[in-house]
């Protein structure tokens, strides 16, 4: 028996190493062309995915911006006047391009094909401008002004669509910028950080000063550290996925998709120390969101106060934002249209069922509001 166990362990280790080596040996370059940037603040950029949205473009009146653009690139890309623009807000810790991973795996391009004019906020990496930013600053100094910029050109209200923690930022912005926001889509957005899956990671209060001091001492929290924190919730997920990859035919489409996705996973964005304090302490440890203590611009962010048409996607196999973590947000917004894609956190956006279970329902909802 010992021999069989040793052999199994050796096989697993060999398969894991083979998967990792093959991943590193597989050349990959994301070939998707980037849409024009129409606004910039610090390292954050507003990318215009609506340029390809011809059917909408034909319907709307185009006009040059009357407002003073914060960035010289803005006036070259006027937005359509009126309502209907959707602003996608990704997480601060992952690149925005999961929403446009490959030509045929692109939520943003699919929406453009459906005549929906989308913009994506690429947060970029924290630079000199963002160095001291917490979530409050990202919302009030980048997201808010981006909404003002869009509203200034279109003279219409926009829909905010946030993915993962981008949903939390979108929710806060929807409350703070009521006049400019007409609807809200929240995709895999966390809310209750004291759900059963995360509860073991809620540490005793005596440790908080030490952890806070450790975080505060950093300029930024590297993406690798953030990723390893996620692996703590399922330490073998890495081993499982690379062993599965080792078993795939390298020329198989699934193998290529794995590499594309894994490159995105490993292209994380560091968190500023203040965002890390917000997310790891205020959200994860003190559960401020669920406890109705989260404040942005000195205002309590309360989903119950948001009566906008709302779309919530809660993937069934989400290990990053487990069901019970997202559920209280949906319960606080009983008017919301809720869908449960049969996928995980990322699979919901780029998986094989994404078109049927997320893209299409989202497009239908956007057309209907």
């Amino acid at each position, binding site marked *: *028996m*010992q*021999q*069989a*166990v040793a*052999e*199994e*362990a050796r096989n*697993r280790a060999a398969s894991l190493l083979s998967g990792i080596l093959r991943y590193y040996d597989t050349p990959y370059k994301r070939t998707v062309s980037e849409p024009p940037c129409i606004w910039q603040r610090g390292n954050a950029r507003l990318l215009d995915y609506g340029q390809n949205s011809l059917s909408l473009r034909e319907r709307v009146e185009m006009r040059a911006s009357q407002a003073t653009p914060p960035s010289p690139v803005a006036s070259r890309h006027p937005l359509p006047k009126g309502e209907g623009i959707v602003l996608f807000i990704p997480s601060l810790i992952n690149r925005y391009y999961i929403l446009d991973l490959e030509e045929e795996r692109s939520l943003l391009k699919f929406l453009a094909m459906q005549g929906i004019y989308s913009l994506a906020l690429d947060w970029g990496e924290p630079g000199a401008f963002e160095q001291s930013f917490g979530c409050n600053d990202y919302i009030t100094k980048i997201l808010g002004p981006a909404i003002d910029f869009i509203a200034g050109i279109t003279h219409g209200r926009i829909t905010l669509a946030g993915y993962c923690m981008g949903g939390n930022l979108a929710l806060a912005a929807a409350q703070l910028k009521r006049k400019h926001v007409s609807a809200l889509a929240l995709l895999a957005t966390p809310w209750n950080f004291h759900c059963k899956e995360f509860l*073991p*990671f809620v*540490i*005793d209060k*005596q*440790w*908080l*000063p*030490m*952890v806070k*001091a*450790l975080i505060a001492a950093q300029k930024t929290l590297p993406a690798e550290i953030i990723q390893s924190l996620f692996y*703590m*919730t*399922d*330490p*073998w997920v890495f*081993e499982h996925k690379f062993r599965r990859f080792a078993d795939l035919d390298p020329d198989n489409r699934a193998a290529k998709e794995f590499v594309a996705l894994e490159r995105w996973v490993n292209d994380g964005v560091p968190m500023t120390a203040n965002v890390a304090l917000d997310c790891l302490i205020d959200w994860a440890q003190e559960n401020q969101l669920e406890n109705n203590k989260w404040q942005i611009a000195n205002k309590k962010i309360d989903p119950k106060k948001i009566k906008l048409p709302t779309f919530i996607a809660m993937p069934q196999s989400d290990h990053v934002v487990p069901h019970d973590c997202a559920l209280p947000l949906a319960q606080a917004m009983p008017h919301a249209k809720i869908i449960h894609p049969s996928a995980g956190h990322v699979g919901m956006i780029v998986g094989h069922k994404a078109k049927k279970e997320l893209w299409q329902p989202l497009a239908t909802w956007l057309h209907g509001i």
Partner: protein
Amino acid sequence: MQNNAYQNLAKEFMDLWQKQVAAVISDKQFIHAMLDLFQSIQTPGHDQRNAAAPAHPAHTADAEPGLLAEFAFRLAMCEKRLAVLEQQCKKSEGKRRRATSGRRGSKKPRR
């Protein structure tokens, strides 16, 4: 057939072991022990007297012996768990051997 049975058991054993490791990593005691260790690494010994008040009561001048005691305790617990697992393995192997020899005469299962 015998080989397959052992291979399947070995797979099951590895799956269970992975579950056990995952459970240990998300165990509050383990997380606190890691934080303790991390804090002791962060706090250089020669600076300890001048350092600000520690966040955790364990980090007084005798933090190191305390940490060693914690490690010794954890090691002992691991050894104990391993012994139990080995015992269980031997038992189930014995049972299987008896069952197999009952069915197939004196033929012993290959190891």
